[in-house]
């Protein structure tokens, strides 16, 4: 594990609100808060896991980082430079360093492009190299991604590959620019178990060999436990707990993190402790500001959790939790 160093990516109080419905001329639609004042630092060389259920805002976070969306407020800094609102050449320079691996390798690859053209495209976009050197770099990237020997893949098309091979092509495409930061958004949720294990190994090796920093987005605490150095648990757009993967998962604090752990399949020797923090039903949502987990939390404190929203506070070294119980 790498020693923590200066953050390569920082999110400070990032909020993103989507508006749905409403008319073209008025802003009367419903507000959906996808991210609410999220702050987190990702250190160079680490794998940071963002864990949450569907709709928690974890994918929104990745879209904000690569600039597919703009935050409503807050700052996002890469290497100390503000990246919100970057345009033109500065934006292109930034995207060279930050690449994304998407969830579904059946949709993220263009069916009409050969594997060579797919992996080569980022080089063309950024105007790197000539015909010959691009061919070398594409071959190297394929090899890095475990598609060996690369020559046998260059002329093939996505439909001729399995799901695992396609995801390796997506990884090669992301790595061909030698980025410093990779966002992997549920990269294995469409893959079979044994294949996804190989992809985890590959991601781990990319970090060890190339020192690439990674934001790993997942719904699986087990995946986060096994791959990540640090994790953040996100619920309804808020970061509820953050810490090292070992500490957060073996000694969780937030009732929601505990509920996620309780829900993990248990069998054989990995029968773990039962926390029982989840209510059977659900309380009505209070009108006032409240803890996002209040409606489902068995441990909620009356007149506190339903009246105020907790903020993230530090407990010990690098373990932070957003809960009034602490």
């Amino acid at each position: 594990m790498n020693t923590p160093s200066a953050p390569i990516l920082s999110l400070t109080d990032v909020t993103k609100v989507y508006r749905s419905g409403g008319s073209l001329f008025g802003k009367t639609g419903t507000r959906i808060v996808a991210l609410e004042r999220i702050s987190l630092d990702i250190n160079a060389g680490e794998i940071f896991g963002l864990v949450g259920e569907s709709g928690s805002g974890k994918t929104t976070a990745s879209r904000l980082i690569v600039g597919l969306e703009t935050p409503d407020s807050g700052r996002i800094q890469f290497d100390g430079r503000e990246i919100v609102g970057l345009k033109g050449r500065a934006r292109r320079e930034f995207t060279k360093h930050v690449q994304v691996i998407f969830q579904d390798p059946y949709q993220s690859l263009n069916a009409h492009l050969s594997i060579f053209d797919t992996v080569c495209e980022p080089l063309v976009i950024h105007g790197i190299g000539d015909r010959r050197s691009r061919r070398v770099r594409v071959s190297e990237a394929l090899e890095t991604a475990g598609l060996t020997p690369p020559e046998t893949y260059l002329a093939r098309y996505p439909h001729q590959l399995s799901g695992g091979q396609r995801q390796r092509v997506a990884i090669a495409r992301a790595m061909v620019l030698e980025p410093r930061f990779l966002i992997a958004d549920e990269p294995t949720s469409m893959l079979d178990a044994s294949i996804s294990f190989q992809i985890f190994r590959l991601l781990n090796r990319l970090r060890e060999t190339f020192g690439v920093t990674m934001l790993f987005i997942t719904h699986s605490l087990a995946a986060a436990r096994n791959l990540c150095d640090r994790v953040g648990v996100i619920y309804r757009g808020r970061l509820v707990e953050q810490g090292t993967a070992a500490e957060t998962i073996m000694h969780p604090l937030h009732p929601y993190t505990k509920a996620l752990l309780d829900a993990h399949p248990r069998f054989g020797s990995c029968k773990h402790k039962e926390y029982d923090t989840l209510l059977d039903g659900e309380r009505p949502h209070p009108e006032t500001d409240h803890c996002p987990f209040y409606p489902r939390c068995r441990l909620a404190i009356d007149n506190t959790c339903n009246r105020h929203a907790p903020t993230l506070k530090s407990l010990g070294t690098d373990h932070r939790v957003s809960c009034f119980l602490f």
Partner: protein
Amino acid sequence: MTMALLEVDNLSIGYRTDSGIHLAVDGVSFRVDRGESLGIVGESGCGKTTIGMALMGLSAPNAKRISGKIRLEGQDLTALSDERMRQIRWRRISMIFQSAMNALNPVHRVRDQITEAIITHEPGLSSHAVAHRTRSLFELVKIPASRLQDYPHQFSGGMRQRVIIAMALACNPSLIIADEPTTALDVIVQNQILSAIGSFQKEMNLGMVFISHDLAVVADVCTHIGVMHAGRLVEYGRQQEVLDCPGHPYTRLLVGSLLTLSDQPADLSDIYKNRRL
């Protein structure tokens, strides 16, 4: 040996394609008794759903049973006519489908969909008895009776899956086939559905065939595990034995790929020892 609830003997099923018959299930045998649950795991395309559909007598039109027998309490289902099979299906053997989003009819109230299932298969029942059973089914799957009048789109994914479970139980079957019943659900909801399935399976002493790609889920729910690979059942035994001493290399690969929450994270770094990354 006593008569098994379900006995599958040397079942082979192929699909007719333009280039001849493609074998999807190759000589599979297993048995399930009352109170037991057999989890069939395997990757996509290994033939596990083909088995589930064959058990229900709902095989695709181009599927062809090449050999084998399926016996439910001694009665050979493969020898039955479509009409006789229809009488057995849902009453003695029923199914929880994968996609809760699509398995319900969006233009009918959920109550009507359940009562329809009951009336179709048990036409003799009085309307009072049907209404009573519908209510108790909702109680069983923990949906408030006040939601009976709702349409499927008013339900969350987890609640829709509960409705699907209630439908599968509507006619008191003795065997349930569950095909990836929690695949599209979030972890917490998945856990709630799995414990619901587990508890009625035990309480009602049902036999269950649970089909899944996820060994962790199967290990959580099932008493027995069958591992399929390329149409064959490569390993089959009690849950504990399969997990603790997997015999077949493919099972070892699957068990080795299980990510757990243990103190010691899996070793992701020993890549150089392996031929393929």
